[in-house]
């Protein structure tokens, strides 16, 4: 069983549940997701316990203890976030650049930036000079940019589909191919990019 799938099912159940426990909602979800039947029951009872138990009081000593470990967790996750780049576009936003401005700074078109963002370019075909430029514009280490561009394609990860099955993942393109196909770039701009 997949933990991400379980999280999605519990989220869907929580959003469908009224304030008071409703047997029919739980039953509907157990029927819909029989593989998570036990987890749904546990989750429903956990919500009941959270709702009906009196508030827990913490002593000053307990608060200090939990505060220390909370800070450890926060620093640990912050460390992960700082070393891992999650999005070129969001990182640019923090620097005050929108997509178009980011594309201009990188000498690319917006659609090429989108290709990079979704990791739809073969990593080996991306010019090293472009990687250096991305790192410089976003003020990130080259290693984190390389790590980001090597992540699996984000094409269908969070998308919703009208069909019951996910479409097949698009095959990554070569950088040169994406440049040649880009209709928003002039012939000169294409040449310049292909010579990087």
């Amino acid at each position: 069983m997949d933990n991400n799938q379980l999280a999605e099912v519990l989220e869907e159940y929580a959003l469908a549940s009224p304030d008071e426990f409703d047997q029919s909602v739980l039953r509907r979800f157990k029927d819909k997701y029989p593989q998570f039947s036990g987890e749904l029951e546990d989750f429903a009872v956990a919500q009941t316990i959270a709702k009906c138990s009196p508030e827990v009081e913490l002593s000053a000593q307990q608060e200090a203890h939990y505060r220390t470990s909370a800070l450890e967790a926060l620093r640990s996750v912050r460390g992960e976030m700082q070393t891992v780049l999650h999005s070129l576009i969001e990182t640019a936003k923090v620097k005050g650049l929108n997509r178009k401005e980011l594309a201009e700074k990188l000498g690319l078109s917006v659609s090429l930036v989108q290709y990079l963002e979704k990791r739809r370019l073969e990593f080996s075909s991306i010019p090293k000079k472009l990687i250096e430029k991305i790192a410089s514009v976003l003020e990130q280490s080259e290693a984190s940019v390389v790590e980001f561009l090597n992540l699996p394609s984000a094409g269908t990860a969070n998308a919703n589909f009208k069909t019951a099955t996910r479409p097949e993942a698009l095959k990554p393109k070569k950088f040169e191919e994406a440049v040649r196909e880009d209709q928003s770039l002039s012939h000169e701009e294409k040449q310049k990019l292909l010579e990087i």
Partner: protein
Amino acid sequence: MDSQRAGSYFPLTKRTKQGELYVRRDDAQMQIEAVAEREIAEIRPRLYVTDRADELYLLDETLVFLYRRALFERDDSLAEAIFIAMDVRIVKLLLKHKNSGFIHGCEFDDFLQDVRISVLRKIGDLASDIGDFAQVQFGSFVSSEAKCVGKKNFGLKERERIDDHSGRDDDNDSDLLENAVSPDPGPEFKAMLRQGWSQFSDEQRTIVCMLLDGFQSESKDPNETTISSYLNVTSRTIRNKIGEIRRIAAEAVER
């Protein structure tokens, strides 16, 4: 908010499977809109308000919003202060489950740390809509993360339930179920249950919560989730357990 501040951390973008956009509760949305205009200096003292009845009390979902905004604005100091306030609420919620199936089989502190990290990763992800659930139903979000973190332990619990089941005392249960009734406990009994809380064992507390929230104690329908099916005990046993709870509660009221 200016256009930059109204970035991905502000509007909810996730949709349900039916295509409906996630929506915050009205009280959370109103509070978020109000605090979004405030200066940080005004918000900080409110992080320490713990009385829910206080008008300055910040809702859980508001804390998530403020945390994401602090991350977006790279204000680490504020993000830390907000998370500490949020963490007290996470701890209190998980402590309610300390001796239940959620945490069964592992050290509470280890479990708590794993849940915290999972929560932080999701609410700190500003590039996707994965943190939207936390801004809609924070308590359910934390419980869901806890459930996922502790799945292996739940598996253990499930096995124990099956083991218990093999030795269950289910003589003549079908006769008992012929007349099975699970009446609403009624306001008087509910008040007694609340008064007797400190006297109850962990299992009795689970039963009490389930009774208060409207679970039936037993049912003829094997697919229905009841108190007896959840605890995997027979109708006879659950009736005895409820009888014992009633006795303890009555004693607590008399004292």
